[in-house]
């Protein structure tokens, strides 16, 4: 059963991938729609089946994501053949052959693109194979050509040219360039993803408008067969490879406009050889955009493409906005508060390849020294312990250079006394200007976060005592620095540095990790927590939460009654709630609102901010509107921990949600209290199993 189900899934997903979406329902609609032309339906299915059989024959892994790229390209090739040729045993053989060719090409291109360019393959394999087929078929007189536009009964005669143009071009996406299939697809889009729908319609009209201006004829523009490239380009850039937003929409429209020229240029060139250009303009434009934006590390690049642009958008804010899994996150390499003397892109030495580095010293009353500051010992940071920022081992270190007298620098040994530590996460940290003979570790030593490794000195290019701190991906001193974040820095005003990026003259410290709080927030499998939920004075229900583990090793609180899951864990020494997954209404969202993140610290008081997922604090506007206005989209809570209590303030529109939670003396939480629109929901712990 499971095998059939997975085959069926793959089939339906391959169809919905034609529109970059992942939806069984859409797949089914598209599959059924193709039967309006039984020829393409048949060749399509043959191509899909061939791909499937061939893939398993050569032992390709049945990884869903990749598999649907293979089958999707083959599907297109199958459609292409079915659209041009009548079904004969020859065209079937051709379909099978070209499908296999597509698989090989897809696999090869996928490897090259993914590894070297970090690019998707889109439907380049289809574009190339269909060109090959078109070229080859010129010599094959045995193949019987079919008329591409023969199913005129699928057109609605009363429609104006512009609408006809739109619908038929959307129909082309499943090789049915007629009004009715176009309409079916468009309506399904409207229900499934309004962002995709909007992008499709807008891209088409903008592309066609430009076309019409250049060709000075709307009739020619609306009859342009390849205008579907506009639609694909618009959807791909605006909603798939970028997170839907004002900026992505603008980029999408720019892409569409550029593709007009490419379309005409390519079609003139290719038509000399009698080759249809199919999706070539689309592939070219989208790949160019994605490559450039990806290389520039554009903030709106979509790193995890979900089923629809809407879901990508939600996920982006739920997850990627809240958690960074990519950048290195070392702790600060010292104890107590130190001052950022020079930050990233600093004014003196943090330039070029060393721009991602921090210099730290200790400052009191805006000076870094006592007395006259003429001696090393006058400087507050001199000889203060330097601690290990990561877990790993020492790969290189040196501590035999002299500490310079104040005002002098060692221009020959710029980096002075240093230590380079390899992190278990695959990067190196480098700390410079250590005191002579102060190293407490040697090459090869295993080190832990917080362990004393040396003292701050004034060696190397250092006019007054300070340390230089950077992350690099090579073991060599002086290597290029890379961006990183400090996960648990706090300022003197007790504010958590939410984005992990420090600015010049920030006075920062690691917060104290609390073993006690850590133990209190360690929920283990099958822990049971029973809460009584009250609304005002009225008792609503008894909620039983059980701690469970998912197949990927993540833990969640499971509310058996509603099957809602509240995922939690420890990340960067914070207790975090990752996501809330539920089909039904659940009161778990109140818990989420109260404690989306708790720094595990015994620091008496701390302030921080946290974005809240959309299914926890719902958005009032439809997603397609709020994708334009980020502020309307993200509800940010301001949180405040004072001893065992956590207070929150979430601004939603004009109203404010107040939350309060209290940590139990032994484990978990005593109560949660959420005041929303003048109603108070209160959870109180009435039972637990430990």
């Amino acid at each position: 059963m499971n095998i059939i189900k997975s085959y069926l899934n793959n089939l339906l997903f391959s169809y919905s991938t034609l529109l970059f979406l992942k939806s069984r329902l859409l797949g089914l609609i598209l599959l059924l729609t193709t039967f309006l032309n039984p020829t393409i339906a048949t060749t399509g299915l043959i191509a899909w089946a061939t791909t499937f059989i061939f893939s398993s024959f050569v032992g390709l892994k049945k990884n869903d994501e990749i598999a649907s790229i293979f089958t999707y390209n083959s599907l297109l090739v199958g459609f292409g053949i079915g659209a041009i040729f009548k079904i004969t045993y020859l065209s079937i053989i051709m379909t099978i052959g070209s499908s296999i060719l597509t698989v090989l090409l897809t696999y090869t291109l996928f490897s090259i693109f993914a590894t070297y360019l970090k690019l998707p393959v889109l439907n380049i394999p289809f574009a190339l194979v269909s060109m090959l087929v078109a070229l080859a078929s010129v010599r094959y007189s045995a193949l019987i050509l079919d008329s591409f536009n023969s199913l005129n009964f699928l057109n609605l005669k009363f429609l104006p040219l512009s609408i006809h143009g739109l619908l038929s071009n959307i129909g082309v996406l499943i090789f049915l360039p007629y009004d009715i299939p176009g309409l079916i697809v468009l309506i399904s889009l409207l229900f499934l993803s309004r962002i995709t729908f909007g992008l499709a319609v807008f891209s088409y009209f903008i592309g066609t408008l430009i076309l019409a201006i250049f060709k000075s004829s709307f009739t020619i523009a609306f009859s342009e067969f390849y205008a579907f490239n506009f639609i694909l380009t618009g959807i791909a850039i605006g909603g798939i490879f970028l997170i839907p937003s004002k900026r992505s929409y603008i980029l999408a429209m720019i892409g569409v406009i550029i593709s007009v020229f490419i379309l005409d240029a390519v079609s003139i060139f290719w038509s000399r050889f009698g080759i249809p250009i199919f999706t070539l303009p689309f592939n070219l434009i989208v790949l160019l955009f994605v490559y450039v934006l990806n290389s520039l590390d554009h903030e709106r690049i979509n790193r995890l493409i979900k089923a629809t642009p809407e879901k990508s958008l939600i996920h982006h804010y739920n997850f990627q906005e809240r958690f960074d899994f990519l950048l290195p996150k070392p702790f600060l390499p010292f104890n107590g508060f130190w001052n950022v003397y020079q930050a990233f892109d600093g004014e003196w030495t943090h330039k070029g390849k060393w721009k991602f580095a921090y210099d730290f010293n200790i400052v009191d009353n805006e000076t870094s020294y006592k007395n006259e500051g003429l001696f090393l010992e006058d400087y507050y940071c001199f000889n203060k312990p330097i601690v290990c920022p990561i877990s790993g081992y020492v790969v290189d270190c040196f501590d035999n250079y002299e500490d310079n007298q104040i005002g002098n620098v060692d221009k020959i040994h710029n980096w002075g006394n240093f230590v380079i530590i390899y992190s278990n996460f695959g990067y190196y940290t480098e700390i410079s200007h250590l005191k002579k003979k102060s190293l407490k570790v040697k090459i090869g030593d295993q080190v832990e976060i917080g362990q004393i490794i040396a003292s701050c000195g004034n060696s190397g290019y250092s006019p007054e005592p300070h340390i230089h701190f950077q992350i690099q991906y090579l073991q060599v001193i002086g290597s290029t620095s890379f961006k990183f974040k400090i996960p648990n820095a706090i300022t003197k005003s007790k504010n958590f540095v939410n984005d992990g990026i420090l600015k010049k003259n920030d006075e920062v410290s690691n917060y104290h990790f609390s073993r006690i709080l850590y133990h209190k927030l360690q929920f283990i499998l099958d822990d049971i927590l029973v809460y009584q939920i009250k609304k005002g004075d009225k008792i609503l229900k008894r909620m039983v939460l059980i701690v469970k583990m998912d197949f990927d090793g993540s833990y969640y609180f499971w509310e058996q009654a509603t099957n809602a899951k509240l995922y939690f864990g420890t990340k960067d020494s914070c207790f975090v709630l990752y996501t809330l997954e539920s089909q039904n209404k659940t009161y778990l969202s109140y818990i989420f609102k109260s404690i989306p993140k708790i720094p595990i610290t015994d620091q008496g008081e701390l302030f921080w901010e946290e974005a809240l997922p959309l299914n926890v604090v719902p958005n009032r506007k439809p997603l397609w509107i709020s994708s334009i206005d980020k502020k309307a989209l993200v509800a940010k809570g301001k949180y405040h921990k004072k001893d065992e209590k956590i207070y929150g303030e979430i601004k939603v529109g004009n109203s404010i949600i107040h939350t309060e939670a209290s940590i139990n003396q032994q484990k978990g939480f005593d109560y949660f209290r959420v005041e929303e629109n003048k109603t108070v929901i209160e959870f109180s712990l009435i039972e637990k199993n430990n």
Partner: protein
Amino acid sequence: MKKIYTKPFIMKQTSGYMNKFGSIYQKNYRSNIAGVSIEDIVAKADSPVFVFDEKKIRQTYRNAQRDFSNRYPKFQFSWSYKTNYLDAICSIFHQEGSFAEVVSEFEYEKARRIGVPGNKIIYNGPFKPYNSLLIAFKENAMVHIDNFDELYEAEKAAREIGKKVKIGIRLNMDTGTYPQWSRFGFNLEDGSALNAVKRISKSESLILNGLHAHIGTFMLETNAYQMEVQKMISFMRDIQNNYNFLIEYLDFGGGFPSKNKLKGTYLPPEVSVPQISEYIEAITDVLLSELKPQEYPMVYLETGRALIDEAGYLITTIEGVKQLPHGSKSYIIDAGVNFLYTSTWYNYKCEVDRSVNGTPENTTVYGPLCMNIDVVLENVSLPPLTKGMRLILSPMGAYNVTQWMQFIRYRPAIVLITEDKKIEIIRRAEKLEDIITPERVPEHLSKFNL
């Protein structure tokens, strides 16, 4: 200025500074405290007057706090109330982030009154009344148990309020110094500390989460603290390995000296007394080398004297000059030993409010009490002074204004020189009502005829 008459006297001839009698008297006068002139202060608050320098208090605190926390991350000062529990002074420390360390129900109430939350109070002392234990437990104060009887009381109190209560115990130990303060807490070497831990582990209502020790006062030896830290860490390990307790904090007490000259010491305090940073370095060195980062407990220090002593001054006025029969000179000032508890063991620094010409000679400074013991300074080298000149005595910040007593005269005002050089009266001079208010005269004594 008119030259002051002095009686003829014989003086040893010295040539230059190098001689076996030490340096000759340096011009040692002080015209202001924290930038405010002595006369301005006296004009506002009269003489005598205790003066505190807010800027200096904050600076000393911040230096020590920064020094410690830049070495060992989990560190917290707790202001020793008994050293100086004036509301204004305590508030300065609490503004700087210090917790409160109290040793009686009175100090506890005082700390609560100015707004210190219960869980930021360390409650020490050899006797804690039952009711104060109840309150402290309810408010989650850190209570340090001193003896077994108190342990039973604590258990009873915990049972009464019906919750599991976290407590600490006070330890005493041999740190190689004399005298060994063995009267406070449970002794480490004779096993009574371990017995206390065992007893607590058997209790249904008590949890042990902290260890406290206070090895002495005016400790001039930093090594003693290293020994203390070492012993407490190994005791903490013993407890954590053998009993189901997690020690959340270690409280190393206080006892750091100030730059006051102890009677009977030869070298001046600038030479003989180590800097606070030296104590901090000694303590943190042991902490950092003995502990792993994940097991770092919170560390408390209850430093009092070293943080406040040098920020306090006493301005007094010379009210009489007298030649004693054996030939030496003496002055009578307007502040007596009843305000100056610490005069018993310190030779204060004594500064005149102006530059005075004339040869200094050894003099005695008496207080105004009609008591023979009222000797403020026994042997101080002063130039010839006349009535009305001011003497500024220091360091005065620690203990005097808590241990002073009302006797014969009213106790004087206490002022604070703020950071922007304003003179704030933080305790006004006493009036008759202050003293007679608690008094009651029985009916039959209410009238008399003379």
